């Protein structure tokens, strides 16, 4: 059985497999090196302090000003609105799925949620622009065509399936015996959910929220279509804003010459975006990992 041929095949397969894993490491290295290098070039021309704390973003029209806060502000409006909508809703959907739904209902609802999660973001952008915004304008005609609220709502709809499925995972990991202990003491379903299920899974619900925030920060096409392209530091969620991602799209669509400061600025914004999402993903995944260990 262990002929020369078999050993040779085994060895070469092993080598091929290692090569394909190394692609993932190379990707990470490429991300870090490239974003680092281009941002470094950018910060040669614009000081890092005026980038991070500047309040005026006007990269394309002179006088140039590269203060990123207006973009961060736009992103934060989207994140805030989306999370405000999606976390409670996703939590309730998950509660329904794990505590109330029969197997039959579940086998219908889960694929529907997957379908909702599989719809491309540009479609949600179209939906926001042609349905949600006109609906909002119907209530209040003062609202601008491009506005943060509409973008936030549609991003909320987008991340809802993700939150629901993360919370559902958390609920299923709660040992049956704890819940049954609650029922044995005379609690009804609502009380078991409120006093046992949610407290037992609160760190994983928190983790789901953090991962959802990270998704909402990185969301691009829906907000580019719905929220507009006006970078400004604003307290008005019904006005047009520009997110970090929408700016990157705007610059790269406009054919900025390679090496120019506009081109480099998109990498600086990309780096900031990458760091923000990376930190949140690490924290979120760590929380999920830890709580899994505790319950097992």
């Amino acid at each position: 059985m262990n002929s020369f041929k078999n050993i040779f095949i085994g060895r070469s397969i092993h080598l091929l497999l290692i090569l394909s894993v190394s692609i993932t490491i190379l990707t990470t290295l490429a991300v870090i090196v490239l974003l680092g290098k281009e941002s470094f070039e950018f910060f040669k021309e614009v000081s890092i302090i005026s980038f991070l704390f500047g309040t005026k973003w006007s990269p394309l029209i002179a006088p140039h000003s590269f203060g990123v806060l207006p973009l961060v502000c736009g992103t934060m409006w989207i994140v805030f609105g989306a999370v405000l909508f999606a976390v409670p809703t996703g939590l309730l959907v998950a509660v329904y799925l794990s505590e109330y739904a029969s197997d039959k209902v579940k086998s219908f609802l889960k694929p529907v949620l997957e379908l909702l999660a599989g719809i491309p973001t540009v479609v949600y952008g179209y939906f926001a622009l042609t349905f949600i915004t006109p609906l909002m304008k119907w209530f209040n005609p003062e609202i601008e065509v491009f506005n943060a609220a509409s973008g936030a709502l549609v991003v909320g709809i987008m991340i809802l399936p993700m939150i629901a499925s993360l919370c559902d995972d958390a609920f299923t990991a709660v040992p049956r015996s704890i819940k049954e202990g609650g029922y044995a003491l005379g609690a009804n379903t609502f009380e078991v959910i409120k006093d046992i299920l949610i407290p037992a899974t609160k760190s994983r619900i928190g983790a789901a929220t953090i991962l959802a925030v990270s998704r909402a920060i990185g969301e691009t096409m829906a907000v580019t279509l719905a929220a507009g392209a006006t970078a400004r530091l604003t307290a008005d969620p019904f006005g047009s804003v520009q997110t970090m991602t929408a700016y990157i799209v705007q610059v790269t669509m406009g054919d900025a010459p390679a090496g120019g400061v506009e081109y480099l600025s998109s990498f600086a914004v990309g780096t900031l975006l990458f760091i923000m999402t990376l930190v949140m993903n690490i924290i979120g995944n760590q929380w999920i990992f830890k709580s899994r260990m505790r319950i097992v």
Partner: protein
Amino acid sequence: MSKTNDSLTGVINLGNLDSKPSIDAKRKAKRKMYDKLFYRFCQGTIFFALVTLVVLVVHILMSGLSWISLDFFTNFTSRFAERAGIKAAIFGSLWVLFLTASFAIPLGVSAAIFLEEYAPKKLWVQWVQINIGNLAGMPSIVYGLVGLAVFVRYFNFERSLLAGSLTLTLLILPIIIISSQEAIKAVPLSLREAAYALGANKWQVVFLQVLPAALPGILTGVILSISRAIGETAPLIVIGALSFVAFTPTNIWDEFTVLPIQIYNWASKPQAEFHELAAAAIIILLVLLFAMNFLAIYLRQKYQRYKL
């Protein structure tokens, strides 16, 4: 569940034998009401989510359906809405689908096999695993920037199909790896041990026993990730895929456009006709994606023998 609970509550409250309506009875009614209300509230949320999905689909169908005709498939895009079609976008999307699949599937599946079957239990493997998890959560637009810097500028692939497909390959690779790992993990140890007991080699066990058993699960994950790549817009815009293309690509070095970019382009125009065109293109895209999703769900339910 809730019926047994009520009777249990009843048993506990039997101790209270006062004839007048006690505080306990009031509290009991209140608790019961909250329970009911919460149940209805959950139901309402689910109903709301379903209605949203239905509204989304109906809204798009109503705006776009009348624009779908044979011409819509055979025309290139145009400045005039009546003459605009999605020929270039359809061909571009199919090319991207084919190329991305042929890069990402072999790489992703073999990486998963390595991590599940070959990797030593060492710290660096754990780091690789964490790294893959983080890559899966990286915003797609960052992949676009990487593709722009590496494939378009450094390797000088320009705005070709090749550059686009390689960028999308990087994007979906972590997702394919993770889902394939889940599928391989679900194959029971006994299958491997039986094969070893019959004298098989490591590679024979892995490729002739484990892999075929895990195939339905792997396939499901692969189809879902490919459908993610088909719907992806932002990274392709960043690497410079065009929005006005009046030719079908003939080889991997050609410039291209894809359906989502065409949709974005039409949706961002102010005229209502172009919005309706966007809706028509969305219908085609969604039909493609839903078909892939249903195939994935079908495969999972029909062939999956081992579930984690």
